[in-house]
């Protein structure tokens, strides 16, 4: 009994260390975002301070923070929303029928098709981006939402196909066979039976897809301009100047990750399945 208690103590100690290690950087940035410009650079670093909302006000263009990047932050944020939502909507139309076909229908080249989709997950993005840098300028797709949404499919489609496939495969096939015997059409059984049953999985797929798109950096960096770049690229402008604006940078970071933290909490049950493309359930 004593042995077990000692063991539990060690486990809790380990968990405490782990919790600090995982959350410390995030907590520190959140604290920084509420510090005024003197507290933020004070040495020794202040743990207790009088919080201020100045950084957030400056970020949203309220009050005068003397910011370079502040007024543009909101437009980066808007770009991220447009790009991520646009990318998942397009990927849904392109990827979902394929996911269903691969899960249910019998046809030649099925597995090789599926693995071709998966292999795009493993391509170094820069291989595809560099030729597009030239091509997009010729086609006037450089620095456009459409151009970026198209290249975001490189991230979105493989995930969409593989994750949704794993959900469609879990729905008992007898349901569909029964429906077909009852005279349902293919489309009818898909929309009225399969889709409602797979809805939680489909929703989780969309959310994960959104997160992946939101996190992307290199595509916006190389194929977007100031009008279309996402917030991940925009944040770097806080670091680029000779004098780093710690406070506003911290506030911008916090705002940029809020949508994600909320979404992650909402779909945490499905997270591992998504990250491994349905390989681990």
């Amino acid at each position, binding site marked *: 009994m004593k042995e077990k208690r000692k063991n*539990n103590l060690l*486990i809790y100690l380990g*968990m405490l260390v*782990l*919790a600090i290690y*995982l*959350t410390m*950087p995030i907590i*520190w940035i959140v604290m920084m975002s509420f510090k005024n410009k003197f507290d*933020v*650079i004070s*040495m020794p670093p202040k743990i207790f301070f009088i919080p201020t909302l100045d950084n957030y006000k400056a970020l949203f263009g309220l009050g005068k923070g003397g910011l370079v990047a502040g007024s543009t932050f909101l437009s980066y944020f808007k770009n991220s929303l447009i790009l991520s939502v646009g990318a998942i909507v397009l990927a849904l139309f392109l*990827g979902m*029928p*394929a996911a*269903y*076909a691969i899960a*249910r*229908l*019998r046809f030649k080249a099925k597995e090789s098709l599926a*693995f071709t989709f*998966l*292999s795009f*997950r493993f*391509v*170094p993005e*820069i*291989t*595809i981006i*560099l*030729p*597009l840098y*030239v*091509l997009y300028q010729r086609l006037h797709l450089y620095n456009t939402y459409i151009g970026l949404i198209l290249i975001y*499919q490189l991230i979105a489609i493989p995930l969409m*196909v593989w994750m949704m496939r794993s959900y469609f495969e879990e729905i008992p*096939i007898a349901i569909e*066979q029964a429906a*077909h015997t009852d005279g349902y059409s*293919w489309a009818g059984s898909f929309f009225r039976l399969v889709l409602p049953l797979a809805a939680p999985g489909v929703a989780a797929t969309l959310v994960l897809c959104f997160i992946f798109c939101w*996190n992307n*950096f*290199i595509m916006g*960096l*190389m194929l977007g301009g100031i009008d279309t770049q996402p917030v*991940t690229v925009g944040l*770097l402008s806080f*670091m680029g100047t000779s004098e780093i604006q*710690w406070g506003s940078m*911290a506030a911008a*970071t916090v705002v*940029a990750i809020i949508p*994600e933290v909320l979404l*992650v909490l909402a779909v*945490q049950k499905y*997270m*591992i399945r998504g*990250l491994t493309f349905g390989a*681990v*359930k």
Partner: protein
Amino acid sequence: MVTNALKPEMINDPLIRTRKDWLPTIMTTPAVLALIGMLYPFAIAIYYSFTNFNLLKPTHKFVGFENYAKIFTNPDFWEAMGNTVLFALIALVFEFLFGFLITLLLNNQVKGVRLMRTLLMLPLMLPPVIAAMMWRTLLATNTGPINYLFGLGDFAWLAHPGSARFAVMFIEIWSSTPFVALVLLSGLQSLPKEPFEAAQVDGANFFFVVRRLMLPMLQPFILVVLLFRVVDVVKLFDVIFTTTQGGPMLTTTTIPVLVYREVFKFFTLGSAIAKVLMLWIINYALSFWLAGRWRKSIGTM
């Protein structure tokens, strides 16, 4: 009139056999078109790698294998390749080690384990750029809490080769270890309980259980982790771009960073693409091999 009614022999078929042969074609066409859309730039990339394409010059000409031949005598390429391989190895070893330790820790039935799982998702879901910015802030020379905490004065982490490499690796390991831990944890909890109970009854010690039972049984999950981690760490770009930009000198430059710099500083797109294609070959071979082993380890699907 063709009806939708299925023939009796199809009822027990695990997959739907369709009389309508056009159905799979129609359903997969949009995605296949998208694939072709992605293969097209890839094909141009291969073509450009055989030309002297320069972003500042209006014309380019075919130069055969010149770009590839030059790679072999280019010391920058080999240094970047060395870094890429070194970083991948270090990251994998530590992510695996820490990830497995976390798995063992959280495999216990105690309160708070669920909360820890949620916490594990946070670093995992931060954009790598933001994770890197956070750590850059914590490691800041004059204002960072880490220098204060460890009494390092005004040590500039990103200015020295050794510490810059350490910082880049640390950030990568910090953000990806949770992935390893969560996959292994799901794996461990999906394993049958009987062998472990039997081992306990026989009084097998902990290390024996880990080495002879846990690790072999986790093999498919370990392969999935390897598959996803290897290919990602080989194309490591965001973290480096946000922190060291490849410096000091080339000590933290990986192939993607080298290629980015070449294109936007020297505009020699042709030779830059040749370099990144070398990386792609490695990545493709590794992922193909690992995916094959993984499929074998789970049997026929």
